[in-house]
């Protein structure tokens, strides 16, 4: 089925998924009581999400564990039925037209493989060719392209159970592209992988997206994935959309933050940190920042809407033992950490 290029490929409208969960009591007595309990509570896993995605986008789904992003993906892939609201993807309703709909999509769940465990990788690919009735020519050219991108052919004869996690993930992602789906859902595709494999996986996803216009939705906790792949971020927490927009603007959702990094004179980082601890008393919209894995530089986060960085810089240079300075954009990671910690609530 052909769709006009301008029309959205994915439309979610006021999507909700509520689960009824039994309130469990403690202890043996409680466990017995629970057998007869009608004491349910309602969990609003997804609570009114609306969004549209157009053909060819790569969209990153972010949110802390339990935010509702997996539930949203499960509804979009047709595994879960929404409690209310609508989903239309490629002109189809996933749960109602499952058999037809799944031909349009590829799905990779980082934790589960869809490859045949005991057999060489190529046997799983051949099976996928049969399942989706991929024409021989398409199948061959897809395999050649994947081989050219990530050197897949050397894995063909290896049993899936003998692959490393990274190799298996490459094969799983490659498998999801074989039938040329319009949309691919990737749930944590780089979880637990080393830097080299992550880079390969990002190359694979980005290249296939550019060459075929495949729409890609991925969930991840790795900001590297987002910055390498996604022009658009959708942030979900407690079942609601917190942010939906360009990755570049994402860092501004709390204001125009900059990070001012300071290097202490004569290695007196402790003295400098002690002085910086009180920075918020001097300037509104500032706070000392702890940099992960940083032992040399100290840092202050400054919201330029409230205080110009120049003012804080002048104060630091005049009154503190500072040898060197750097001013940086606040990192995406730092913004997300604030969201996860509940700064928006």
């Amino acid at each position, binding site marked *: 089925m052909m769709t006009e290029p301008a029309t959205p490929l994915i439309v979610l409208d006021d999507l909700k998924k509520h*689960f009824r969960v039994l309130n469990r009591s403690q202890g043996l007595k409680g466990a017995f009581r629970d057998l007869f309990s009608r004491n349910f509570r309602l969990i609003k896993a997804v609570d009114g999400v609306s969004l549209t995605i157009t053909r060819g986008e790569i969209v990153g789904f972010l949110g802390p564990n339990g935010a509702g992003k997996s539930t949203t993906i*499960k509804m979009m892939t047709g595994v879960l*039925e929404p409690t209310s609201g609508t989903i239309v993807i490629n002109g189809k309703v996933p749960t109602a037209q499952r058999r037809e709909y799944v031909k349009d999509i590829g*799905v990779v769940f980082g934790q589960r493989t869809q490859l045949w465990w005991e*057999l060489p990788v190529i046997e799983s690919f051949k099976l996928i060719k049969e*399942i989706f009735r991929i024409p021989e020519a398409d199948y061959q050219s897809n395999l050649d392209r994947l081989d050219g991108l990530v050197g897949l052919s050397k894995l063909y004869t290896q049993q899936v159970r003998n692959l490393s996690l990274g190799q298996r993930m490459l094969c799983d992602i490659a498998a999801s592209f074989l039938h040329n789906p319009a949309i691919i859902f990737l749930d944590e595709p780089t979880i637990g992988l080393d830097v080299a494999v992550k880079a390969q996986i990002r190359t694979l996803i980005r290249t296939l997206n550019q060459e075929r216009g495949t729409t890609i939705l991925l969930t991840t906790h790795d900001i590297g994935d987002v910055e390498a792949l996604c022009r658009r971020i959708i942030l979900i927490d407690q079942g609601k959309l917190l942010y939906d927009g360009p990755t570049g603007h994402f860092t501004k959702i709390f204001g125009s933050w900059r990070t001012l990094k300071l290097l202490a004179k004569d290695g007196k980082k402790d003295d400098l940190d002690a002085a910086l601890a009180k920075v918020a008393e001097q300037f509104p919209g500032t706070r000392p920042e702890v940099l992960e894995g940083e032992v040399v530089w100290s840092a202050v986060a400054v919201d330029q809407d409230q205080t110009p960085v120049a003012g804080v810089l002048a104060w630091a240079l005049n009154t503190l033992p500072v040898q060197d300075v750097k001013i940086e954009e606040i990192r995406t990671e730092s913004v997300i950490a604030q969201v996860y910690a509940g700064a928006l609530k």
Partner: protein
Amino acid sequence: MSRPGLLGAYATVVRNSLMSTFTYRAHILFQMLGSVVGIVILWYLWKSIYAGSGQTMLRGMGFNQTFLYVALGAALFVLMRTWAEWFISHQIRSGDIVVHFFRPYDHMAWTFADNLGMILGNLITITVPSLVVIFLVFGAPFPDLVHWALFLPALLQACLLSFLVDYFIGITSFWTESIWGISAGKDVLVLLLSGAMIPLPWFPDGVRDVLLWLPFASLYNTPLSLFAGTDPVSMDIGFRLGLQTFWLAVFFFGVRAYFRIAARRLTVAGG
């Protein structure tokens, strides 16, 4: 249900499943040895039962007939034992079953194809060696063509029914989450009531007449009695095969409805 376009996919599943069974070489070797030892034990057991009675015919069956019936019963038990309910239960409890929801095929047809591959694997690695032992080592009388012609369709129906029973039990773990007790219970009931362990003609007449009507008999007694030529009651051959088909149909439609309910529950409650 599946469309003809997917037959190639299901055939590939059968092939892949058969190839997978061959990857576990030690498992095959021990199953083969176990089956042969089991047949040897059965031979001595029933030999001594006949010797102890001092008669050549017991419950209307000679030793050769009884031995063929029980030895083949043991071989069929291993043939049809594919542990399908354990695989389905594992899929459900681990959540791996969702992978099948992303594919345009029928889960039951897929699982059956997978099961068929395992049955073919068992046939080649265990059943054929067992038959060699039964006929060549112990010299059981080789049934004529008529008996083979009756036995093979009955065996096919028995394999289908066995799969449906396993599939039914596997889906039950949507609710029970554990499968051990149900599966073990089923095995005991089947072994005892189907003729897999004790030939149905050996049960008291009243009990036997009831058992012949139950689906258990369709699993083992029907193919075994047709093969060994034991005709315990007046229930004629055509009727026995028809009854088997009847139970097959009942289980087929029952299990399909059951799966729809389970899948519905999965999509609504998240399993």
